[in-house]
């Protein structure tokens, strides 16, 4: 029950993180759907890693589950990170470029 209560509290806090407008069925249901989608997709993406390495997949699934329940709600955090701020967009573009080049260039040496 403690886990359930924690989840419920995080959902209540989710709306206030998103905006200061009056809470309506529309935005609460949207936030809930987003939160569930993130959780399920994270688990499924972690399971997908079994095609690369089964051990890595098991470790990532456990890590994802733990990280999710200790960092709820994720939807509002993801929303704030995906704003139209040029700084944030540029940051993620540069990080992705760096990861791609590093993983592909050095990673292929060990394949």
């Amino acid at each position, binding site marked *: 029950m403690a886990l359930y209560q924690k989840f419920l509290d995080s959902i209540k806090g989710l709306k206030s993180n998103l905006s200061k407008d009056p809470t309506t069925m529309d935005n609460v249901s949207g936030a809930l759907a987003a939160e569930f989608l993130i959780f399920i*997709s994270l688990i499924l993406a972690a399971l*997908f890693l079994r095609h690369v390495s089964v051990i890595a997949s098991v470790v990532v699934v456990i890590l994802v589950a733990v990280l999710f329940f200790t960092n709820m709600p994720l939807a509002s955090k993801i929303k704030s990170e995906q704003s139209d701020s040029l700084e944030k967009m540029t940051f993620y573009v540069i990080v992705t470029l760096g990861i791609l080049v590093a993983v592909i260039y050095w990673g292929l040496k060990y394949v």
Partner: protein
Amino acid sequence: MNYLIPLMVVVPILAALIVNIFGGNDKTVKAISLVVAIAIPLIAIFAAVGVQYFGGHDPALIASLLPSNLVGTLAASYNTGIVYIFENIERIFIFLMGIVAFLAVLTYFAEKKKVSGPYLYLIFMGLASVTALMLSNDIFNMYVFFEITALTQVGIIVASSTEDNYEIAMKYMILGAIGGPMLLLGIGFILGTIGSVNINDIIYAISNNFVNPYSPSLVIGFALILFGWLYSAGLPPFHTIKSAVYSKARPNGSAILQGFSVLCMFAFGIAMYKIFAYIPYFNTAIILFAILAMVLSITMSAMEVDFRRMIAFLAVGELGFIALGFGIGTQYSIAAALFQATNEIVITALLFIGFGTVYYLTKTSDTRKLGGLIAVDSTMTIMVLLGGFALAGVPPFNGFQSKLMLVQAALDAGYTELAVLAIIVSVVIFFTFVKAFHTVYLQPKPKDLKFAHEKIPKATVFSVAILLIICLVLGIFPNIVTDIFITFAGGLI
């Protein structure tokens, strides 16, 4: 020689120049625009499948004139000029893009009394660029036309006169200043390693071991071209700016912009698949970005209160489905991805133009200020609802067929978790659309809601109806296109 192939690019470029010159004369501009907009899909239908060698450098002809010491060498097989390849798959995409452009231009004329020459110039120049991008078999030529497309996209946003459009256009240009040069740098690495930018030449050189397939310059070239592909398609980390771009253009402009993105994604995706599919974990990398695109974009759309931004995020999320099909990498999944790309061009155009009528009527896209719009035009309301069903993958529409193909392809390839994810994302798309639809059309009309226009122009209703008919026809008779896609995908693998 099939002169209709280069005409698919030349005609819109000429139209772009002419409408800009006659910018002040509305009747002339409208007449020229409509004739050219309908001519482009017609040329795509009547052009015969074939190859166009620019500069008269047919390789077979040149090979017969080569000195004997060059015969059989790598240099002898190279194409020395730009080559356009036109097959049935290009016919389908250019035809559909032409239809969307025609309907968008028609809608623009109906909703705007005084037309803008520069705005139409940008539309036609963009259309010419993406057509060339589709036809070209030369990655540098593709890059050049992609940059022209990106510039026309920026221009279309600037010419749209919506709130914050300049800011978003500037941000897109700044991020493009990272994505575009990286793509060019990747192409430069390929040119430096192989000595050609023709896709067939590159494949020939790699598959016949004239170069080391894992040479550092080729590998880094792949990484940079993959990054450029993410930029051209609007996949993460470019999904936020891409959705902002769609939401800041006029609805008819957004319909065209998303079509441009799909075609850029298709052209570079196919080129990348042809050249780099041998690289280990190539498919895994594509799948990871597909998952990111689907989840991040659909999550954002579920929490969005601006319906134009919501559709924009849904459009980017649908790109994730296309990437997923490419990433799974089987013949059936690539065919499903191509079908999904076809459907996205039509469905998203329908939703941008259809939902755009709400913006036309009320000059607001904030769902919290809207309601009761079913009373204004019930026909349009129903068509938008059916368009949303097509997007979410509800039978008997085309979206259902392509998503079913994707799910089947994922299951056949052993990616059960991806099939489940695709279904769950489709459910959330359905939920998001129904939520927005209910808010805008079905809930009671707010007392303070004011109308800028009383009625929706008939041309707009006609445009949405045509797009809906295409969705229905492709949903009931998917074989019209899927047979061609399956054959093409078989050749690709």
